[in-house]
């Protein structure tokens, strides 16, 4: 895909985040979509492309009253929205549509109008994982961690520092769910969930949503907000079964999607001013730093524990507080994208001064899928 041909011209989250007991999941989609449309100064009738995950595009299009000529229902977990951005950029460039709305929302906490996830007993997961006691993401996502730690010499304290640093960012963000400072000792003494991970190394469970509006870069200059250009993109999938990952000391999906986006963007790692790595659990930023090529995996734990990703550090990471402290409705990728866009617009609560390039990396399922979007505010 060519660089900087498509831009984000509208971006917004739901009016409220956290616990929203007075709204169903589909209404959360609509709330985010209407906020993004207002942000872009558009009318609903201006939207001719729609993408969403879990809920279907037809559900969201009908609820909002949109008649699209392009739809994308890619639903590969929490990074689906990174893939939507990539697909939408390609579709806009190809002339299939002009103005795309991407929505995400989940009533993850209140569970209003949300189908519970289920695993059929005759699926491969149902036959070869479910009978051995996996029960939701906390029992599955950390399964590779002990092998990662042994292979790369990572300590429990280093992984705990991920949660500590992100809480520092969250403290600067009025919309963050958890803002009180924590220490490495607090993390390592918090309630055990699935050894080696404790509650402070697991994401929050909240309600909320977000939406993005994309159009061609040539049209973007006529919109009220500063355009945020799509500089590079990548995507991949590996396996829906965490037990069947090729290796646990790296994520194949990360290693395909991340470097693909860097190559497309034509940038080096030293050019990155701001970084988001989807943190459903505390090990993901380590995998991301290694697999995206910022440093060898052996150095990732020390890099974070030494404070390089904290406010004032040389590589600001997860500056909204992340899934660990900001919010996590189940599919967090949309909130990582929202923070990248805020940083590129220069309006983030914890703004990285002068940031020109933001890398936003997402995961879907338990390392099952991955999507990477690189944004810039310069064309």
């Amino acid at each position: 895909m060519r660089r900087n041909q498509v831009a984000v011209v509208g971006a917004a989250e739901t009016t409220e985040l956290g616990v929203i007991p007075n709204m169903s999941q589909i209404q959360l989609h609509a709330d985010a979509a209407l906020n993004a449309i207002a942000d872009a100064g558009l009318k609903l009738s201006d939207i001719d492309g729609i993408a969403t995950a879990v809920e279907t595009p037809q559900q969201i299009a009908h609820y909002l009253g949109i008649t699209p000529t392009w739809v994308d229902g890619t639903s590969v977990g929490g990074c689906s929205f990174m893939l939507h951005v990539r697909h939408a950029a390609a579709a806009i460039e190809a002339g299939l549509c002009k103005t795309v709305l991407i929505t995400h929302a989940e009533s993850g906490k209140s569970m209003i109008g949300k189908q519970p996830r289920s695993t059929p007993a005759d699926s491969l997961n149902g036959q070869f994982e479910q009978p051995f006691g996996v029960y939701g993401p906390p029992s599955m996502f950390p399964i590779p961690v002990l092998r990662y730690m042994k292979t790369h010499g990572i300590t429990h304290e280093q992984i705990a520092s991920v949660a500590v640093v992100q809480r520092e960012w969250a403290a600067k963000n009025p919309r963050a769910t958890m803002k009180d400072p924590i220490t490495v000792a607090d993390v390592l003494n918090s309630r055990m969930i699935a050894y080696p991970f404790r509650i402070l190394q697991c994401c929050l469970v909240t309600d909320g949503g977000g939406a993005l509006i994309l159009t061609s870069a040539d049209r973007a200059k006529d919109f009220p907000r500063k355009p945020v250009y799509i500089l590079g993109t990548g995507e991949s999938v590996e396996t829906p079964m965490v037990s069947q990952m090729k290796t646990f000391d790296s994520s194949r999906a990360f290693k395909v999607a991340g470097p693909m986006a860097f190559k497309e963007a034509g940038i080096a790692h030293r050019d990155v001013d701001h970084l988001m790595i989807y943190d459903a659990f505390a090990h993901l930023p380590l995998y991301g730093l290694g697999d995206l090529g910022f440093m060898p995996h052996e150095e990732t734990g020390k890099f974070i524990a030494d404070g390089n990703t904290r406010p004032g550090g040389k590589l600001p990471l997860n500056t909204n507080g992340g899934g660990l402290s900001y919010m996590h409705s189940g599919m967090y990728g949309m909130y990582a994208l929202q923070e990248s866009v805020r940083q590129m617009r220069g309006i983030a609560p914890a703004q990285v001064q002068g940031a020109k390039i933001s890398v936003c990396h997402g995961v879907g399922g338990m390392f099952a899928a991955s999507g990477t979007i690189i944004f810039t505010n310069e064309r």
Partner: protein
Amino acid sequence: MAEPARAKPKPTPETQHFWDGTQAGELRLQRCDACANVYFPPRPFCPSCASRKVSVFKASGRGTLYSYVINHRPAAPGFTPPYAIAIVELDEGPRMMSNIIDCPQTPEALELDMKLEVAFEKLDDKITLPLFRPAKG
């Protein structure tokens, strides 16, 4: 009221040989006749070279502990926490999820790369699960 039971697998035509194997006290894997790739989970073609000429064989039942979590909460139906959910690397190459029996469910007792051997746990007349225990000797 009966205790909530452990999730039970339901075989498909492609996986029936595996579940017939565990019932017969055998851990069965598949090998590609064309490229010799040994793979899991079951399917009637080789995911490495796409050949449909594949054979089922009885694996050694030996492996090592590749990684694990010790799940505390929430516990799956039929499980008493804390319990380990383990990934076993079989001597033949493939990895599979399982549980470790005859072993304390603690980080001290569960050492990565420890040797394991298969054990079979009958759930009912149709389904027997492959579990693993520390290898003897």
